[in-house]
Every structure is written in C-alpha cells, then in structure tokens.
C-alpha cells in the first residue's frame, strides 16, 4: 500500500510539473513565436523567408519574433491543424486544403480569400513538361502527350495537388480547344492511359522520371522542373511550355481560432503580408515560384517565359464542385481509370 501511495504521489507531482511547464511556456512564448504550417515543397522557401521577416519585424517594431515551420503532405498538415496543431498561419499549394479548415470547426474564416491580395496567394506556379535532352519525341503541347505509345509520368491526382493540377490542366486545354466536355473526357482518358506509374507526390514522380529513366515526359510544376535543372544539370533535360496551362496559385491564411487563442493575430497577419513585399517576392522568384509582383517578375523574366494560363475557379467552377465532379469516389477521374483498362 505505501508503495502505491508513493507511486501515486510521484505521478501527480510529475503531471503537475508538466502542466506547469507547458502553461508557462505558452504564456511566455505567446507573443513572440508563430508557427507556419505548410506543405512539403515549400520547406526551403520558408527557410529563407523566415529570417528575412524576423529582421523586417525587428526593424519595424523592435520586437524579436521566432517563426517555426512545419512541413508535410498538404492534406495531412490540414488534418493536423483540425486535430489541434497550433499553427498560426497555413501556407498551402491548393485552396481546398484551406477551405477544409473553414468547413471543419471554423478554424479559418470562410472569406479567407479576400484577406490578402490576389485571392490570398503570394505566388503561383504552373504545370509544364520535362522531356529528355533534345526532345527526341518532339513533344510540344498537350496533344503530343496523348499520342499512342508515349509514356508520361504524372504524380497521382488522388494523392497530390501536383497531379490534380496536371489532370485539370489537360482537361482545361482540351475544353479550350474543343469546347466539349465529352472531348475533354476522352482527352484525359487518353493521357492517363499513357501513364505507366502514378507516384504519390511530385518528388516521387521526379525520381521515377530522372533516376529510374521511366517515361518520355514528366508533367510537373514549373518550380519542380526548374529545380531539377539546377540539381541534376540542365544538360540532361529540357523544359517544354505548353500553349495553355493551369495557374496553380499557392494560398495562405491566418488560422483565426489559433491566433485569437494565442494572441498572435498582429504578427501572424504581418507575416503573411510580408510575403507580398518586394523583398519576399524576390526570394520567392529565386525559389522558382512565379512572383505576383510585376517588377520582380520582369526582373526574372529569363527564368519565367510568358505562358497563357487559366484559373480553376474562374474557368471550371469552385474547387468544391471540381473535386466532387472529378476526384471524388465515382468521379470522372475514377471512371476513366476504370474504362481505360
């Protein structure tokens, strides 16, 4: 019995201590630390943006702020926030991953798109083709990717934003050409019939195409294609810009419920506003994302050739509709995967 008591006391002391510690750490850090919950590919970008913001904030207010970052698959990150991860801001690569925070538990205001310029997206990228050096198969546009016998590597539209944008880019291109949904459906059917491997994410598709040597073309984000050129040498691959592609804007939002609880709204908002400043836009451009700032875009014009793009929400309807129509259970994407076999 005495042993049991001692054990209980020790446990109680330990728990109380832990509570005390966590309470004090929240209290002392509340104003000075913010957490940016983001997707996988933006890790390097924010590693460079965060110190720039910290310096900027120090110069403006004299306060020292720490910005922590958390990266992972975008929907896993969103689910973590829903489950209680205390992120102050969320920076994603497609709007549905922020919409879900508004839908489930009202963590973010439903009108988050209006809180910052350009539908609350500080940068964009677009889907482009990466082909083997010299373009041996003569791939110029989407039409060339659906030719029989060609092998195209695309990330899985069911698991990655990158793959979803690729699918929608092809759909939008065919729709623009033919003005017929039936023709667009036939077009994406033929495109995905040419896909021998569906990797879970953009990086996986890059590995399959560049390291495993599978496929004649890789369809991926422009920033990924540029990064491949930088890392693996531009003498191995060429980037091909199709005549029409998709605008993949990266949305950002303040997580209202968390900043109100932690009292960090001012600095969280300033952090996201900073992303639109010329200084941050330059960093963004250096990381191969297309900046919103026209002057910065002009400065990096050699890196970002002009390309005609369309916007999902303005051309195809709201993301909720698009997801329901194309990617949900029994949606068009699933139907074409069944019909092509």
């Amino acid at each position, binding site marked *: 019995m005495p042993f049991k008591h001692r054990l209980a006391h020790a446990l109680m002391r330990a728990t109380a201590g832990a509570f005390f510690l966590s309470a004090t750490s929240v209290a002392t850090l509340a104003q000075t630390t913010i957490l940016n919950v983001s997707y996988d590919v933006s890790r390097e970008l924010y590693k460079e943006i965060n110190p720039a913001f910290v310096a900027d904030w120090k110069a403006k207010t004299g306060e020292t702020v720490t910005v922590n970052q958390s990266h992972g*698959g975008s*929907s*896993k990150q*969103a*689910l973590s926030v829903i489950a209680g991860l205390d992120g102050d801001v969320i920076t994603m690569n497609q709007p549905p991953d922020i919409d*879900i925070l508004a839908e*489930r538990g009202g963590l973010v205001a439903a009108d988050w798109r209006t809180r910052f310029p350009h539908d609350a997206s500080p940068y964009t990228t677009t889907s482009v083709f990466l082909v083997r050096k010299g373009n041996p198969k003569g791939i110029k546009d989407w039409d060339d990717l659906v030719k029989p016998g060609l092998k195209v590597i695309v990330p*899985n539209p*069911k*698991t*990655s934003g990158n793959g979803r944008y690729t699918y929608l880019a092809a759909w939008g291109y065919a729709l623009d050409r033919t003005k017929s949904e039936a023709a667009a459906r036939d077009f994406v059917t033929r495109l995905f019939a040419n*896909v*021998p*491997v*569906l*990797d*879970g994410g953009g990086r*996986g598709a890059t*590995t399959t195409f560049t*390291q*495993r*040597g*599978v496929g004649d073309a890789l369809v991926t984000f422009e920033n990924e294609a540029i990064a491949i050129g930088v890392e693996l040498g531009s003498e191995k691959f060429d980037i091909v810009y199709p005549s029409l592609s998709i605008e993949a804007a990266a949305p950002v939002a303040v997580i209202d419920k968390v900043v109100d609880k932690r009292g960090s709204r001012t600095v969280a908002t300033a952090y996201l506003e900073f992303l639109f400043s010329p200084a941050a836009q330059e960093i963004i451009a250096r990381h191969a994302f297309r900046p919103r700032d026209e002057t910065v875009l002009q400065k990096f014009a050699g890196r970002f050739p002009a390309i005609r793009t369309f916007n999902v929400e303005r051309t195809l309807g709201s993301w909720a509709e698009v*997801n*329901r129509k194309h*990617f*949900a*259970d*029994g949606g068009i994407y*699933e139907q074409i*995967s*069944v019909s092509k*076999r």
Partner: protein
Amino acid sequence: MAKVRAHRVLPGFGLSLGYTLAYLSLIVLIPLAAVFIRSTELSFDSFWEIASARIGDLPLPERTDGRRNFWEIVTSPAVMASYRLSFGASLLAGAINMVFGFLLAWSLVRYSFPGKRIVDAMVDLPFALPTAVAGIALTALYAENGWLGQYLEPLGIKVAFTPLGVLVALVFIGLPFVVRTVQPVLEDLDTELEEAAASLGAGRWQTMWRVVLPTLIPALLTGFALAFARAVGEYGSVIFIAGNIPLVSEIAPLIIITKLEQYDYAGATAVAVVMLVVSFLVLLVINGLQSWSDRRSAKGV
C-alpha cells in the same frame, strides 16, 4: 468467515491480468474500436438509404454531399481490385517466405559455414530498415535501368511498377518472420529423433516428411501468419515499386491513403474495416490449422 483463497504458484495474477487488459485496450482494442465506430457513421447512412428505398420503392436517393454508402465504397471496382492484389500478393508472399524461410533456417541451424553469423544477422535487416528505404532500393534495383532490371527487361520480365514488384517487396519485408519462428524450434529438435527414424528404416524423405516437418508445422504456420499480416498492412516499401495504377497495382492501404487525402475519413475507415475483418478471418483459419496439426501430431505419438 475466513475464506480459503486459491493460491497460485506465481504471485500477482490480479495485477498482471489487469495490466494486460489495460495495456491491450489502450494499444489495440480502443484504436480498433475507433475504426469500427468511424465506419458505422457510414453504415447507418447506408442502412437508412436502403430502408428508405424499400419503403418508397424508389431508387436510392442521390446524396448531395458526395458521400456514398459503405457497401458501394468497399465493392467499387478499384477497391475490389486493391483487395485482390493486397490479399493475393500477401498470401503468396507468405507462402514463398514459408518455403525459403524454412530452407534458410535449416541451413543456419544444421550447417556451419564461413560467414554464418553474418548471414544470421542479415536476416533481421528487413526489420531494421525503414520500409521507404527498402522500397526505394528495390525500385532502383528492378527498374528498367537498374542492376537487375536491365537484364530482366530483355526477357520480357517487368518487376518494378507492376504487381510482381508488389510481391517482391512483400517477400522482402516478410522474410525474417518465418526464419525467426522456425529457427528456435529447429534448434530444439534433437537430431537423435532423425537418427532413430533412420535406424528404424526410414528413408531421408520419409524422415523429413514424417518426423521433421510435423514438428515444425506450428512454427511454420506462425511465421506464415506473421509474414502475411505484416504484408497486408505494408505501405512504405510497396508504394515505391508498385506503380500504383488503379485496378492494376493499387494496394488497399494506398486506397485508404487516397481517401484520407481527400478528407474522406468514413470512406477510408470503410475500406480499413473490410481489410481488418478479412485479415482477422485469415488469421483465424491459420490458428485453426495450427491447433489441428497439433492435435494430429499428438494423436500420431
């Protein structure tokens, strides 16, 4: 009113039973229960849908939120194909491991050869390696331009990005189970038994079939069951080598992940519940086989 308490040889039965139950609940039962509860959200819907359709004799009402009922989800062509692949490849991988794991265990126990200890240690490597690393390594090996793939390709054998690749990965991760379950039993198996069989006139094959294997069957089945169970749930290593083409090389755990990626919790758990039930049934059958073989060998003696 002095009660005579039954004394057990080992003290602390109450404590250890309580501990076992609490631990099992916390680690296994509560999470599994959560899976079932999640999926019942859905099956109630489907129950309602079916019931209401019967009453009004109308076609099933179209759901506006894009969710569909349990049965529709788990029997859709893509999901059914993934079950066939996951369970088929796992059973096959378990069987392959049972045969070759036994041979490996036999060599390790009965023979001594240079480097035996190293081989023995290497058997556990598939356990220690992060599964993603295993997957990437196997893919690099079997891709068209890989060390092995480049020789298999001209023969028309494609391993990476096909269902065969799934099998290769599952065999790889399941190997240690059979070896490690058979090894200790084999070590305890007296060679005198075999000598006795030989002196009574049994041939080599007869000794193997009638003396050695019956003793090993429970261990072999345990190893098979473990390798199978591990393979059914395996995700990390398979995902790199499978190719993940719907209806061809999508494993069931990938279907679950794709549903989660689309915030379809209920759909994901529906697929998971079916996996759970089928796995449980398979393991139950294996357990039954074990006790059957126990009874049979007991009778034989």
